[in-house]
């Protein structure tokens, strides 16, 4: 009976009900949209860390003025600088260096896949320890001549062939999303890259006419052996290998992590502010409502409703409005965050990867539960007040 009466009370006062639903909607929207954004940013950073895969990145000294890992990762701007392969060999012999893998950066002018030039990155599948583990989530085969791995944001034609400088390249795998510029890069082995360099030179589109994938690289990725201090190995490379600069990969993404922490704190503060405000408004609104409905509760007492039943009525009405508002808030947040994740990513300038369906569902349910719990706590206070009403006094009021 209490459930039916609650429904009728809510339906009978649509304005009052709408206001309470709206407050609950604010609560669940803020917590779901905010936490989903923070989680997506965290996931983006984690993915980026994992994809970087190296402890140290070595680039030519001259590159330090034009090379910024953050801009490379987030804006897809790797820069064009080259280093003789012999330096890579020198780096590989330094103590504490467990493995090295070279990469060569080349920009395509355009490709059928993309509206802008994509980054072509050459790597050596034999020595690679960053790209292949990433690719192995979807592909376990060989990376042969003409084969390319493409980032998640690259649009792959139905025939699986992308054309760069009139060279057909077969897409063998699409890599998992990182939320960074790595998602718009195309990876190929050095043979393929060499063919692309030659094709670009033939077309007069390459400003670096003299480069050869056999002789130069753009960066050397270093994995430090266990037991060695990454900082010490980096310092050793900087000290003993001339014309190069070694940078710790973790330092490179620390700026991104710092930005993420800042944004997360801002979002957290925003959520807290909305919650405090909404809860205070909800408390005031419910208190006013309960005062307005004192006579209604007194009449129910006259009919034989126990204090517990009155509390149940208040709690049921609150649960219904919070459930409705909470669900609407979650749905609205989903409608904002999912379709506009690209815009959010661009605005924040941070890697943004939406979590999987299971985690989103858990987050949605958690947000709804938080909204219901907050509403229930406030209603419980009001219900406790209602249970103390002096029925006889209220019945005489206004007579």
């Amino acid at each position, binding site marked *: 009976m209490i459930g*039916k*009466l609650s429904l*009728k*009370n809510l339906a009978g*006062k649509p304005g009052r009900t709408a206001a309470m639903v709206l407050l609950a909607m604010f609560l669940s929207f803020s917590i779901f949209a905010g936490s989903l954004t923070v989680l997506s940013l965290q996931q983006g950073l984690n993915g980026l860390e994992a994809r970087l895969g190296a402890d140290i990145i070595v680039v030519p000294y001259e590159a330090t003025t034009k090379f910024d890992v953050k801009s490379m990762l987030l804006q897809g701007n790797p820069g064009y600088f080259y280093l003789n392969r012999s330096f890579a060999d020198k780096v590989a012999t330094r103590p504490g260096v467990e493995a090295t893998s070279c990469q060569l950066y080349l920009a395509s002018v355009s490709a059928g896949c993309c509206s802008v030039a994509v980054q072509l990155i050459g790597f050596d599948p034999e020595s690679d320890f960053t790209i292949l583990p990433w690719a192995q989530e979807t592909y376990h085969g060989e990376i042969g001549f003409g084969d390319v791995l493409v980032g998640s944001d690259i649009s792959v034609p139905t025939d699986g062939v992308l054309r760069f400088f009139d060279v057909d390249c077969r897409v063998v795998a699409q890599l998992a999303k990182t939320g960074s510029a790595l998602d718009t890069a195309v990876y190929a082995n050095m043979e393929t890259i060499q063919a692309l360099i030659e094709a670009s030179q033939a077309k007069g589109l390459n400003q670096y006419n003299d480069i050869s994938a056999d002789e130069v690289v753009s960066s050397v990725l270093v994995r430090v052996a266990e037991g060695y201090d990454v900082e010490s190995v980096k310092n050793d490379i900087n000290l003993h290998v001339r014309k190069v600069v070694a940078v710790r990969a973790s330092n490179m993404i620390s700026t991104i992590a710092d930005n993420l922490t800042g944004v997360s704190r801002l979002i957290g503060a925003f959520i807290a502010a909305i919650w405090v405000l909404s809860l205070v408004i909800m408390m005031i609104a419910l208190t006013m409502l309960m005062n307005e409905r004192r006579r209604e509760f007194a009449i129910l007492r006259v*009919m*034989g409703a126990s204090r517990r039943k009155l509390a149940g009525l208040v709690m049921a009405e609150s649960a219904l409005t919070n459930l409705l508002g909470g669900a609407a808030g979650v749905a609205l947040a989903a409608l904002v965050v999912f379709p506009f994740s690209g815009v959010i990513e661009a605005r924040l300038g941070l890697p943004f990867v939406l979590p999987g369906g299971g985690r989103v569902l858990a987050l949605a349910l958690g947000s709804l539960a938080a909204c219901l719990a907050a509403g229930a706590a406030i209603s419980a206070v009001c219900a406790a007040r209602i249970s103390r009403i002096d029925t006889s006094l209220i*019945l005489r009021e206004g007579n």
Partner: protein
Amino acid sequence: MLRAEGISKNYYRKRDGSNVFTAVQPTDFELPEGQVTEITGRSGSGKSTLLNLLAGLLAPSTGKVWLDDADLYALPDGALSRLRNRRVGVIPQGQSGLHSLTVLENVLLPARLYGRGPVPEARARQLLERMGIADLADVRPGDLSGGEMRRMAIARALILEPSVVLADEPTGDLDDGNTAAVLELLRDTARQGAAVLLVTHEAGAARYADAVYRMDSGRLTRE
């Protein structure tokens, strides 16, 4: 049936108890079944306070209220509320419609509070008919006049055929015809075995009463 032993009600205007207002002086009182008992008196004389004490809605400062063998104020709230729901029909002062329900739903509400079985809709319609508001069954209280709402409250108090009916100014807002109809209905209710208390200013109500009391400054005397 319903009887009060030495009940009184004091209100303390100051926390230290130095200023006491006695709304009901210590009183023994009984509502016999099958009878209409009327209490008259000026406004503020303590009539409604006594009615609320008898209804289990206001704990007395002293004394006890018994409904058959049940000491009302010794019962936990849940049991007292259920007892009031099943056995006591209270017609409160003033407007007492729940605005989210229709007239018929308002009348049936006491039956639905604890009942899981079928609701006595036929009786509800019969009572509405008797009160002259049958055609308003699907209307919400907000659309009723004061008198119509009053009659709805009377029908609601009688829906579960209570053994005790406590009516506080049931004929307020009513014209002569409806006043007579209400008093006649309460008389019939007593005839069917209920103990009926009628708190009223209505001059002609005594004609329907088996016993008449007068309340003056909280003191109850039989006339």
